[in-house]
């Protein structure tokens, strides 16, 4: 009963109240382009923070370099806007030093999978208790639209003028195979699932990874002729399929349905497991050997 009461209270808060509570208004206007999905990612994160009731004095946001990495600057909280690709290594130092802090990292596909790839796989392997929210827009947006490790094969970028010759990384699959203990992927168009996933990610005592597929309407859309902003946002809807549905079709679907899967991207909670985090292990070691 009490729980229900609590839930309703959260739902009663307006979007404006959420923004007033969490954002640094003196940092506005923000730098993001019209039609960009990053603002939605921020919005969903704030809702998840509110639902989870995190103490903003005990929460630290970190980021690297790129469009999405400007996000912590807009949130009224301790934050570290670091060097390109290195946010997870900085975050490791923060979390280990004070395990009481909630540590959240914003990153992008270039920041996380390109220059920061090594830090990423090792943060996953360590299962360090950090929540990573990765904005994947398939391109280096901040620098003007160069090809990324996530750019689909054949797509155009300023540095792939004849189409991308390289196969792309799947960020979420990479997180799962590297050892992350909570992995989810969503598009930015619908709010509820990402908000719930970010909240679950915050609750997981280990490395959590939420990939947000987010349209870059300036650098990616123009070069790849994705149409109007509305059309591009809808494209994500057509392109994605719930992981449960994907598996069902894989098992029971017709040949035709199975063929269609080849073009689809799985969304949903893709992986969940319970495993001790590194910060917990270090704490246990200290208790064991302390003089």
């Amino acid at each position, binding site marked *: 009963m009490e729980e229900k009461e609590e839930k309703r209270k959260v739902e009663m808060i307006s979007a404006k109240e959420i923004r007033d509570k969490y954002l640094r208004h003196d940092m506005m206007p923000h730098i993001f382009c019209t039609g960009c999905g990053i603002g939605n990612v921020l919005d969903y994160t704030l809702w998840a923070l509110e639902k989870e009731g995190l103490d903003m004095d005990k929460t630290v946001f970190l980021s690297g370099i790129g469009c999405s990495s400007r996000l912590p*600057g807009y949130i009224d909280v301790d934050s570290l806007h*670091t*060097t390109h690709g290195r946010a997870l*290594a900085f975050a*490791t*130092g*923060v979390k*280990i030093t004070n395990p009481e802090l909630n540590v959240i990292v914003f990153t992008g596909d270039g920041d996380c999978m390109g220059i920061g790839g090594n830090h990423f796989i090792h943060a996953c392997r360590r299962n360090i208790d950090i929540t990573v929210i990765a904005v994947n827009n398939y391109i280096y947006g901040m620098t003007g639209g160069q090809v990324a490790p996530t750019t689909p094969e054949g797509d155009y970028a300023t540095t792939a003028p004849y189409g991308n010759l390289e196969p792309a990384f799947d960020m979420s699959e990479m997180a799962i195979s590297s050892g992350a203990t909570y992995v989810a992927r969503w598009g930015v168009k619908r709010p509820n699932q990402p908000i719930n996933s970010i909240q679950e990610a915050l609750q997981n005592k280990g490395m959590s990874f939420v990939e947000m597929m987010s349209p870059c309407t300036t650098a990616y859309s123009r070069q790849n002729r994705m149409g109007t902003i509305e059309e591009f946002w809808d494209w994500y809807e057509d392109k994605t399929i719930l992981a449960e549905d994907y598996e069902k079709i894989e098992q029971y679907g017709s040949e035709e349905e199975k063929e269609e899967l080849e073009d689809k991207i799985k969304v949903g909670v893709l992986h969940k497991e319970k495993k001790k985090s590194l910060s917990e292990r270090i704490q246990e070691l200290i208790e064991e050997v302390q*003089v």
Partner: protein
Amino acid sequence: MNEEELKKAKKAIGEESQFIHGDTAVAYGALLAGCRFFGGYPITPASEIAEKMAELLPKVGGKYIQMEDELGSIASVIGSSWTGAKAMTATSGPGLSLMQENIGFAHMSETPLVLADVQRSGPSTGQPTLGAQGDIMQTRYGSHGDFAAITLSPNNIQETLNYTIRAFNLAEEYRTPVFLMLSADLGHMREMVRIPKEVETFERKRPKVPPEEYVPFGKGDYGKEKVPEFGVFGDGYHTYVTGLTHDDHGFPATDDQEDHDRLIRRQVEKILDDREELTDVEKRSLDDADVALVSYGITSRSALGALNKGREEGKKLGYLRLKTLWPFPIKDIEELSKNVDKIVVAELNLGQIYHKVKEHADKECEIALADKIGGEIHSPDEILAEV
């Protein structure tokens, strides 16, 4: 650091007198200074510092992590420092090259940390197990842009321990990275060391004002007054820390000429205003000297041999050892160059500090270089040959 913490550190270290090498002395000094975080990556000849820290830190409630590379280890140290710990890493030439970007971040974000560099021959992989003094300029000019460095250079194992403590104190006092320069010979050489009974430590100044009045990046008129208070993550100050040019409150101000100028000048001046307080030299036999031997680190031990041998032969030699390399002791070199006819700079590279001495010495004074590379230290005769 309080009494209890110091007692704990001493208990972890053990015996009061120990026959240890320079790398172990760094670890001991760090523990006594209050260092409670080490982020490292193995590299010869600095690995023993990480090994010792991995063993000792958990014993005093500290945290050790071996990161995936040197870019990550320095990053973890900066993250830890902002979370309130005295934090350090240790490396050698190739690792120092990799760390340069985040060293710049530490300067820009005014993050206290200590970096022990156990130098080996370079460039590139060079001679991993053999000593050199090739990284001196890298600590001063290695990262891009303008900044001032503090770089210390001990020449024996006791001093290495003491200077590690000093490095932490300066890092905390000036909110800046501090470099502690060893070389493979110093890192792996053993001498008797006494663990100091009393240890004076400096803790970074924390803000006392309410969060809305806290200004994390602007302050003061002169020297260390220009060092702002440090709002530790989790204390409720909501500090935004960025490598972008920022205003006094920490927010990006990337297209304002004045903001950048004010920020960087303050960061440089907080150290250079205090140049004379920070610099430290050791002088011997300079009163009647015609020729002065200038050296630092392990090379100063060869220079001392050269001084003694030269004096026995009737040469009027003097000796000046730089214990602090950066900020450069301009005044000491100016004075020295007026009192002698010639200065011989001895170093294990093809000339780094030599150029600084030349820059600041009196134009009448002859400056010679006793350079040596290849992994061996100078014999006294090799230095005397340049006299």
